């Protein structure tokens, strides 16, 4: 029981895997599926660099066991292709080193999905969950607002 056979549904595909019950979703995404876009920044749920989308909501993949994700739709940064929020991050220079970027984008993506008309307060509440050490957040604010407005 410490090892389990599970099926994870990630980026539209099913994957049959053997995992430890104690493995986090982040570990399995990176080490078993090679999806290294989700980044380990603290492994403690503090920084948001590993954020993915689970059933439409943002999730810190270091705070979720892989077995908890069974039966859920997991989307990682690799599952986004040319979305408006990615485009906006590029145009607004909303990243520098890029390490927090996948997590930030996945959180923004979830916000846009759940609250396309989010106001400033809601944006703040959501995006407080991630740390960007390089930018001033102004660029990220511009990027996410530009997409929310378009919706």
């Amino acid at each position, binding site marked *: 029981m410490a090892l389990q056979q599970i099926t994870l549904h990630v980026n539209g595909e099913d994957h049959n895997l053997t995992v430890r019950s104690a493995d986090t979703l982040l570990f399995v995404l990176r080490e078993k599926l090679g999806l290294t876009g989700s980044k380990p920044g603290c492994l403690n*749920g503090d920084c948001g660099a590993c954020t993915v989308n689970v059933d439409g909501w943002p999730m810190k993949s270091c*705070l979720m066991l892989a077995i908890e994700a069974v039966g859920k739709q997991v989307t990682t940064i690799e599952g986004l292709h040319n979305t408006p929020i990615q485009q906006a991050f590029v145009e607004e220079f909303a990243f520098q080193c890029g390490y927090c970027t996948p997590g930030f984008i996945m959180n923004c993506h979830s916000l846009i999905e759940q609250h396309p008309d989010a106001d400033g307060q809601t944006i703040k509440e959501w995006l407080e969950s991630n740390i960007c050490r390089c930018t001033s957040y102004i660029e990220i604010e511009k990027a996410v607002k530009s997409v929310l407005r378009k919706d």
Partner: protein
Amino acid sequence: MLPFDFDYYRPETLQEAVELYQKQAGQGKQVIFFSGGTELITLGRIDLAYVDAVIDIKGIAECKIIKSEGSQLLLGSALSLTQIEEANPFPLLTKVASEVADHTARGKITLGGNICAQIFYREAVLPFLLADSQLMIVGPEGIKTVQIHEIFQGQLQLKRGEMLVQTATDRRFIEAPFYAVKRRQQWDTGYPLITLAALKIGQEIRVAISGLCPFPFRSAELEAHLNRWGQAAESRIAGALSVLPKPILDDVEGSAEYRIFVLRNLLYDALSVLEGSRV
């Protein structure tokens, strides 16, 4: 990275969950009920938590309930704080919960998990303390409903094998005027220096506090001082501050004296908001 292995179970009924617990514990294993699991993951990785078996209660219908039943609001212990905020059935709870950790983490942190947390802030309990809620507990002896004040003294006094299933809160508390604020060491993120929640029932003001002591509390003595109508706010607050439980936290978030300074002002604000011109 958890450096230990554990067995993982996901029962679908309360009975199954309780039986699983007893069976595992009977084999001498360290077992926990697990809903959000964030503490197991974060404390486990730094060797402050250990288990042999995990019983995930998220598949149990009773633990996921959001429902009005008669005059009561029922909230399942495995609801995530985000689910509660989005549904917003209890505005004071929404307000207090929305200051816990951060938004994404609250998608994983559950109501029961926060109330039963090792990390001692347990802010989600404050609204239930104010609302004299009932807690539904399940354990080897079956289901029981207990008045929160009988079972929550700093932390939930669960016996081995028991778990929190639901909270039941009377509608008149849910609709009552409230005030809640979380003050941190600096700016808008971090653990609480003081989290204060207050409720006005009729003419009576109730307050519950986290971050002042290494446990959240509501104190009848303190409230008695606050509700001494004849007196000026200053002396009522001074009275309240004279009967604080001990110890007062004195740590990297803030010194004990500073916490009291902060609390004094927050009490003043609570009285101002809830009593309007009377202060």
